[in-house]
């Protein structure tokens, strides 16, 4: 093939390639759409349940619009608004506590090589491997003696069992990509310790640590077994309330509560996706 032929084939080749990218883009769009549908479709009946009553087989469509369930959810007598606040409070507390403990631990694991690091990493993962309930059974006795059983504080502390591994592992990976020599250079360029923290360290680590915090919040928020065991039913969080209404057969209220409990997860998903997208844009492809 001569050079002229080669040149002549170029536009066609380009066209073929753009055609291929077009197909690929379309496939990606369809796949994304399917995935979203798969994730969101189960919520359609839940949404419908929450705005109707007495919708039973063989009726295909709900009989009538009924907002009673949302009324229950919103009324102070049902205890649900209080439960929302309680759940948020416990999840926030568990997040703060696990960040305070987990981030320094993650920093040590991510930045320093020390003998036995693999063992420590395995131990950190242990609460995810061993059923947390088994651990909590033992802890319950201790909590009883300390007067923590049946209290929101006790529940918050016991939530650390599943939240800490996430925080430690995520922040370890954040720190392992962080080069502390950058801090040294910032110091010599004229930044005080505080300025380095504010202008260099925190902005570099914040996206990753925000994701760790989101994980902790969500894990605590959706905790059922540990809350029931240590709270002894005296600390009704959202998952517990939800369970009550499910077993009581109030599927409309249960559906409304279910939608409420899903909300933080969706917010967190969108937030963390945005944080990660921004961080990866910053790091560039294959960047440090």
């Amino acid at each position: 093939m001569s050079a002229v032929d080669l040149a002549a084939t170029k536009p066609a080749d380009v066209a073929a390639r753009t055609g291929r990218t077009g197909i690929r883009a379309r496939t990606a769009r369809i796949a994304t759409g399917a995935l979203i549908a798969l994730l969101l479709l189960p919520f359609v009946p839940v949404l419908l349940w929450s705005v109707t009553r007495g919708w039973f087989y063989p009726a295909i469509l709900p009989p009538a619009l009924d907002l009673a369930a949302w009324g229950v959810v919103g009324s102070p007598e049902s205890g649900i608004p209080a439960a929302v606040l309680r759940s948020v409070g416990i999840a926030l507390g568990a997040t703060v506590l696990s960040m305070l403990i987990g981030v320094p631990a993650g920093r040590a694991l991510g930045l320093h090589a020390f003998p036995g690091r693999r063992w420590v990493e395995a131990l950190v993962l242990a609460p995810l491997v061993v059923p947390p309930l088994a651990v909590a059974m033992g802890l319950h006795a201790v909590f009883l003696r300390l007067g923590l059983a049946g209290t929101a504080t006790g529940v918050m502390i016991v939530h650390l069992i599943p939240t800490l591994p996430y925080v430690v592992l995520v922040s370890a990976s954040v720190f392992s990509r962080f080069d502390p020599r950058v801090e040294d250079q910032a110091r010599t360029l004229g930044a005080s310790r505080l300025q380095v923290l504010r202008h260099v360290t925190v902005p570099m680590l914040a996206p990753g640590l925000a994701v760790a915090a989101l994980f902790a919040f969500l894990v605590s928020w959706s905790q059922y077994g540990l809350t029931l065991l240590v709270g002894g039913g005296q600390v009704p969080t959202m998952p517990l309330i939800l369970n009550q209404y499910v077993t009581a057969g109030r599927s409309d209220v249960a559906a409304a509560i279910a939608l409420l409990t899903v909300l933080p997860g969706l917010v967190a998903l969108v937030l963390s996706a945005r944080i990660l997208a921004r961080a990866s844009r910053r790091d560039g492809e294959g960047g440090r």
Partner: protein
Amino acid sequence: MTDVVLEGLTKTYAGASAAAVAAVDLVLASGTLTTLVGPSGCGKSTVLKLIAGLLPPSAGRVLIGGRSMADVPPERRGAVLMGQDHGLFPHMTVEANVGFGLRMRGVDPAAIRRRAGEMLDLVRLSGFETRRPSALSGGQAQRVALARALVVDPAVLLLDEPLSDLDPELRLEMRDLIRSAQRATGITTLFVTHDREEAVAVADRTAVMLAGRIAQQGRPDAVFERPATRAVAAFFGIGNILDARFDGRTAVTALGCLALAADPPPGADAVVIRPERIGVAAEGAAASGGNRCAATVVDLGYRGTHVVATFRADPVTLTAAISSPIAAGLQPGDRVRLHLPAEALHPVTD
């Protein structure tokens, strides 16, 4: 203009048995570029950190411009560190990176922009202001790092292996850029490297650091040609080390008596000769003067610019760097006469 004086500077890391930096005395004259060269792990990077104030010394002190730095934090020493990998802040644009030091000093934004622009101009990266470090090549990133260091008008510039992550061609370009910027600004500079050629190529003065100590310092050519000790000779690639006793200007070696051009220093116990200073002649060639010996060619290694020839002159082995035309007439097994010129023979201590 600022000079830097290190007095008995010592650093022993917690838990380490030997000092990483042991009683280092070094003077960086105002406006000069000094290279600190040594194998990895010899403590040279620790010296930089001690000067920068990133580590407290175990003993000794650092004076910058005649002032003791004992209680001065890094941000107020005026000594800027530029690291091995550029160390740019990944979350800032190129312009924000360059302007960082000025921003920390509270300089007004318009002035920062102007100064950052000037510095990017100096390192030939105008137009890169809004890029992120991840969108730069290694050489560009290193130039931004240089601009970021120079923009604060430092009294001292501390360069920690600034070229070691770069490709060979970029290395030369960056080396020249650093040198010309240093000359233009007159910033007292300490340039740490493990590369011997780099060390002698850019420097006003060179200090050789071995196992935490300054083994020798002086003009680059003096250090390169006339090592003081066997260890420095070996570090600069001189394999030709002959044990010797000295009798005036005569060295008694396994090759016989060799004449020297100067009196040996006290304590000298060997002579060395750089490979490129050994002369090679055919066995029957007319030989005038001393310092000659018979030898057999063992091996010839082509290196492009020269040929590394190994000779056996019983009981020692000598290595010479010879030109290709001379090597072309040689084969392993050939008998030759080697000439070790008196002015190239250099006595060393242990």
